């Protein structure tokens, strides 16, 4: 809640021309959105391009922010619009590939089959891990959280997060090797 209030104040200051507050706000927002976009786009897509687009749109629309309303829903609408644009473009490019590049389609399909087998094996390997190891691994790799955030979420020390993650990686490596 404190974070939200700060962002609102920073945005109002940015509207008044305070570049320091604006820079801090953009840095915090981009850090916050990186993990959100990674979660939305999946591990295959780099969120940096969309994040850049979001920051540009935020900059162009900064005069539309009204301090009577919360900042986060305003931000999410911008992110949502950029994500929709991205997915539309992606769908168009996928359609194009499927229609005009039959040969590449075969390659894509073969790659998809291989990656499907790898995913199945990987899922089995993750299931073999202990509950704590699974939690730490998913939080670090799927949700894109930092060690500090995971430690806070699970109410354990940071060093324990590192040890658990290390053990999880070793177990996975051993299972997948076999």
């Amino acid at each position, binding site marked *: 809640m404190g974070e939200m209030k700060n962002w609102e104040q920073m945005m109002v200051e940015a509207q008044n021309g305070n570049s320091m507050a604006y820079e801090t706000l953009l840095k915090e927002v981009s850090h916050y959105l990186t993990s959100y976009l990674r979660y939305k786009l999946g591990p295959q897509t780099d969120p940096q391009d969309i994040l850049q687009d979001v920051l540009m749109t935020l900059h162009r629309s900064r005069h*539309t922010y009204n301090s009577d309303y919360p900042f986060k829903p305003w931000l999410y609408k911008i992110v949502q619009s950029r994500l929709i644009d991205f997915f539309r473009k992606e769908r168009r490019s996928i359609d194009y590939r499927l229609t005009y590049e039959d040969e590449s389609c075969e390659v894509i399909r073969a790659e998809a089959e291989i990656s499907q087998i790898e995913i199945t094996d990987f899922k089995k390997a993750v299931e073999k891990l202990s509950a704590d190891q699974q939690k730490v691994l998913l939080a670090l790799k799927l949700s894109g959280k930092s060690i500090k955030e995971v430690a806070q979420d699970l109410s354990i020390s940071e060093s324990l997060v590192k040890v658990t993650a290390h053990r999880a990686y070793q177990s996975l490596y051993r299972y997948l090797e076999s």
Partner: protein
Amino acid sequence: MNSELIQHLSKNLKPVRPARTPIQQSMILILLSIFIVAFACLFWYLRKDEFHIPQGRSLLESVLLFLAASYGIYQACLSTSPHFTSIRFSKKSVVFLILWFFVLILSFLSLYFLNQEESLIALKYNTWLCPLVILTSSIPISIISYFFVQRGAVLFARNTFLYLSLASLCFGAFGLSFICPWTDPLHEILWHLTPVLLLTIGIAALQIVIFKKIQKYFKG
């Protein structure tokens, strides 16, 4: 990469005046549109048609058209504020248009059962002037509202420009209701309602294309 962008954006940051609320924006646009429609009606009145105050059913239609136009403008202004915008096209914006359609259909049917020949008289003459009046009065409104609205944050261009073109054409049809001498329902369905619906899609598509081209140009 993003840290460079952040530095670039925050460097030389200029203060901005917070945008007006959607209600304030729409009030300004509605007043401007009324002024343009009045001017267009005056122009056509001086040349050919007769000015009259709509009465009875025509008055109801004019009210519905004015409400459809005003609500369309309000929705367009709402859609340019990230606080209120929505991904989906609001069906509420076409409620008044649907009501207008029902009023016309019901009056046509009642007239048809009373006097078949009279109800179909509109099929015997072509009145291209009606769509022309709608178009000429709605084009200045679309241009002004386009520049007005794109100063906000157009996040979902399709919705925004559909609302805008719908509103500008409804204003055009609203103005026409003061100068069109033909009041039979079939004429209004064929030469007022149909052009409004068809031109809405056309003008919205044109506005979206222009908007995207301008955006691409500035990005490049």
